Every structure is written in C-alpha cells, then in structure tokens.
C-alpha cells in the first residue's frame, strides 16, 4: 500500500519535472529576450535571471524611430493581406478540389504540394525576376504575392481535407434549397469551417509575419520593409556595436501579438488540426 503510494507520487513528480523541463526549454529564450529588453545598456552583459535594475528605454528608442513603426505597419498590411488572400483562394480551391469530381484532381493536389517542397533559396532568383517583371520590386504587394505562393499549398491541403469531411448531404440539401455553389460555400460551409480557417489563417499569418529572406531581397527602402528585416537592420552607435537592447525590445514587440493570437485561437487550432480524425 505504502509502496504503491510512493510509486504514484514518484510518477507524478517525474511527470511534472519533465513538464517543467520542456517549459523551461521552450520559454527560456523568450524570457531572456524580455529581460534583456528591459535592461539598461550598461547592465546588458551581466548574466542574471532577474534584472536588478530595469527601465523601458529600449522600447522608447525603437518606437522613436519612424522606420520601425513604419515596418510594423507594413508587416500588418502584408500579413493580413496574405491571410485574406490565402483563405479566399484556399476556400474556393478546396471547394473545387474537395467537392467537384474532375479528371486530374489528384494531380493538381500533388502539384500544389510540390510547390511547397522547394526551399525558398531555390526559387529566390526566379521569383525575383517575376517580381521585377510585375513591377512589384520594393513594394509590399511583391511580398504579399510571394508569401501567398508559399502559404497557399498548406492552406489548400488543410482546407480540402476539412471540406471533404463535411457531409455530402449538407451540400445537397443546400442545392435543394436553391443555393448556388457560392452561396453554399459562404452560407453553409464557411460557418462550419471556422476551426480550419483559424488554424490555417494563423499559420499563414505567422509565416508572413516572421518571413525574412524574401522581405530582405524584395525591398530596398526603409519605408517598404517589414519588421523582421527592420530588426536585423537596426544599427547601434557605431558599426562595431550591435544594439542588443533595442533588438530584443523589437523582438518582444513583434512576438507578443503572435502569442496573443495563438492564445485566442488555441482551442480552435487544436480542434482544427484534429478535425475529421474522429467522426464528430
């Protein structure tokens, strides 16, 4: 009896120790970024887990730079546009791919998946030419286009899988009620696909928000940059000094919205990722 209780306690302690370890591993870098961002620059290289002195100078400094504020604004525009376009195209494409029987459907699906298999670097130069030809160089629209290309495959795949799971009879009922495909999608399917849309939308948002390589390559001036590039290009007092404080402050500023979004949509993401796994 006693032994069994002990074993039980040991198991529980082990479990929570493991959880703590994983938490530490996942959260520590972010925590360190936060405390670094609120340290005065003189304290920056003193290793400590809890800052002895702190202020918000670094935040004041980055927000006083108009280029950084502008970059945040650009990022917001780009990320929301990508999410909107990806979801719009994703939903309509998934209706066609998940609901309409046509020859070559699986080929189309595989080609879509194929697009996302290339590493960014491989398509960078080609895409650069495309952007130039479309006259979108140094324009957020160029970024929106290139991010959409990379988020669409995932969006289409997830939404198609989800769309296939919706009962056929539901669509037929809508047809009997006189609904056109567009009405069926918007009035019947969309309200049922919120979990999948929240999941794919959020992932598209994160991808667009954090993307660095394209943003660096396809923009030239401060006024067109997005946040990741702006952070990387933050400069200190001299060419030999990296402004760690402001960089950390900027990182925290751009990460917090993501964390908040994930927390808001957390439950939907989970139900979206597992949707269709079990019959509801």
């Amino acid at each position, binding site marked *: 009896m006693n032994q069994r209780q002990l074993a039980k306690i040991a198991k529980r302690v082990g479990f929570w120790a493991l959880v703590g370890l994983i938490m530490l591993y996942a959260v520590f870098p972010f925590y360190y970024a936060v405390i670094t961002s609120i340290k005065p620059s003189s304290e920056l290289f003193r290793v400590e887990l809890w800052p002895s002195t702190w202020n918000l100078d670094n935040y004041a400094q980055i927000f006083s730079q108009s280029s950084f504020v502008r970059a945040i604004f650009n990022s917001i525009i780009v990320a929301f546009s990508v999410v909107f376009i990806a979801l719009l195209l994703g939903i309509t494409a998934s209706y066609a791919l998940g609901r309409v029987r046509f020859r070559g459907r699986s080929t189309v699906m595989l080609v879509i998946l194929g697009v996302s298999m290339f590493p960014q670097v491989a398509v960078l130069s080609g895409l650069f030419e495309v952007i130039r030809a479309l006259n979108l160089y140094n324009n957020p629209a160029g970024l929106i286009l290139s991010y959409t290309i990379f988020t669409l495959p995932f969006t289409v795949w997830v939404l198609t899988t989800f769309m296939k799971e919706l*009962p056929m*009879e*539901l669509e*037929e*009922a*809508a*047809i*009997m*009620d*006189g*609904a056109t495909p567009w*009405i069926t999608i918007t*009035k*019947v399917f969309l*309200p*049922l696909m919120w979990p999948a849309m929240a999941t794919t939308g959020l992932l598209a948002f994160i991808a667009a928000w954090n993307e660095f390589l394209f943003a660096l390559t396809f923009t030239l001036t401060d006024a067109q940059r997005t946040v990741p590039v702006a952070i990387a290009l933050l400069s200190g007092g001299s060419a030999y000094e990296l402004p760690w404080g402001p960089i950390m402050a900027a990182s925290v500023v751009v990460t917090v919205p993501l964390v908040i979004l994930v927390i808001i949509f957390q439950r939907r993401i989970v139900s979206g990722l597992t949707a269709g796994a079990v019959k509801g």
Partner: protein
Amino acid sequence: MASVTLSKVNKIFGRDHIIKDVDLSIGDGEFVVFVGPSGCGKSTLLRLIAGLESITDGDLTIGDMLVNDLPPRERGVGMVFQSYALYPHMTVYENMAFGLKLAKASKETVDERVMSTAKILQLEDLLHRKPKALSGGQRQRVAMGRAMAREPRILLFDEPLSNLDASLRVQMRNEIARLHTRLGSTMIYVTHDQVEAMTLADKIVVLKGGHVEQVGSPYELYQRPATQFVAGFIGSPTMNFMPAELITGSSDGCRISAKGLGEIALPQSADGYNQGSPLTMGIRPEHLRLEAPTGSNCFDIVNVEYLGNEVYVYLEPKEGDTLLIHRSEAPSQWKEGQQVSLVPDIEHVHLFDENGAALLVSPTRSAA
C-alpha cells in the same frame, strides 16, 4: 402538387448502368414508395427526380414540364435526407427559412410559411434551438419542415427513418402517413424496409438491379407478385419456395409435382410450358396447414418460435436443406422434434418459371 412521369429513363455512371429503361407514372397526390435491396438503384432514381443527378437518357416530366435539364430549385421538389443534413449553425427557424430566403421571398412570406409549417409539424417551441439541441425525432421533423416550407409540388424522402430507433420509427411513420393525408401532396419515398413500404404506400415500386420489377398497390404486390423476386421480397417472414415440376398443363389449370408435397392441382394457366418444365412453387407461411405425416409428405419440426400473438414453426424437408416456415396464431400445438405433413392452401399457391416470372391464374378459374 403534380404528377411525375418517367419514360425510358437511364442512368450510367462511367461503366455502371445503374438505372435501366425505367418507365413509371406517378399520379398527382399519390404516395409512392421505391423499395428494393441495397444497390438496386432506388436512391439513384430518387436523386434523378430531385435533380441531384443528371439523366443519361430518357425523359422526366413533372406536371406538364420536361425537367431533364432543370436544376433542383426550378423543379419544385423538396427532399428529406437520410442523415437529415440540417445546417448545424442555424436555428430551426433559419433552417426552414433558408430556401425561402434564397428564393427571395418577402420577410412576411418567409415568416408566415415557416410558422405554418412549424405548426403542422409541432415545431413551434423549438424554433430557436440549434439542431444539436434536438432529439432524433425532432431533427427528423425539422428536416421535413425544411423540405415543406417552400411548398414544393413533390416531396422526396430518402430513407428518412433509418437513423431512428424502432419505436420512434413507428411513430414517425404514422406522422408521415397523416402528413400525406393532410397535405395531399405527391410524395416519393425510398426505403429498404418493406414494412414502411407496405404501410405508407398507395403504390409500391419494387426495384431490382436498376429496373422496375413490379409496380402495384401493397395488396397487389402481396397477393399477386409478378416475379419470384417480389414474392420473396414482400412479406415477413418470407415466402416459402420449393422446387417443382410441371406434369400436365393447359390454359385453364395445371398439375405439378412439388418436392416433398407430391402432386398438386393448381388453377394457374400453364400455356406455353412443356411437360416436365422446372418450376418453383411459392407459398406464404400463413397459407400452409400442418397435419399428421402421410407417406413421403413428411417434415421435421426443427424450431418453434413463440412471438406472443403468433407462432413460427420451422420445418426441414427430408431431402434438401432449405427450411420452410409455417405461421399460425398462438397458441400452437406443435413442438420441436415432431413430424408433420404440409397441406398448402391451393388458392394461395404461387408458381414461378425458371426466369422467375409468375404463372398467372387462368381467367376461367379465378372467376369461379
């Protein structure tokens, strides 16, 4: 309300010929049931009428209008699905109003139609609930309400009761029958359950392998099945079949020898059949009499099932392995292990030829 006419309707999916030359006319206000084993094409036929599938060949007329190429919304049909297929995110009211709103009906019309439909189906208290907060029977009624709200000329039911439990099924069957009396609209109903077919239908259409096996009233189908398939499909427990052989036959009667029963004289006309033609004799379980065994007419009672109001006696012939069933009112004197002889009621014996077609009772004999 409208009549429906199908003439030489065919449906081919890829290489599968699902519906073969179906001719059918459904009168205004009739309750027609399509029945058959799974895969017989009954649901496909319903979907062709609904417009959810396109007709490969043939003509479909609703009222006086050829509707082959019309989309469902222009055909004036409403459909109740097997899984109900209610819109989960809409309330009962919105579910019923959806079609009306899409048809651009005015707000007052929508309200009036939904309310009157809800009244007929006793859904008034549930109008603001979502489908997930409803019981199976209530969902079923909402599904019917949604189909009825647009006042279609024809109501289609695709196995609407198969998701309900047994007692609810009986209750809903009753409600559908009363609804038909009350609305008087043309209804077409698909089921694999022959009890639903028998109880609801004005006219039953038995389908097998994509073609119509027989069309008739429940009484006709039960009393005068046109084929061995219909004879075996309608009626529970199923009709007994035993191999037989034609001894002599003319246009006004015949003599056959049935395995185990010896020679029997029957009123069926055997015109066109040769002596010695193999036949199948069919007799329903309630049209057999059990008596003391005589000579070769001798069967073993292998099981006796007591159902309260009636008794099924299972009989095994001396040769052959097909069990025969005898049905009688309870109580029964028969016990397992006894030996008996079978006496068929000549009036109710059916004869089928090798192709399964029924031999008709000769007109001279049936008049007498």
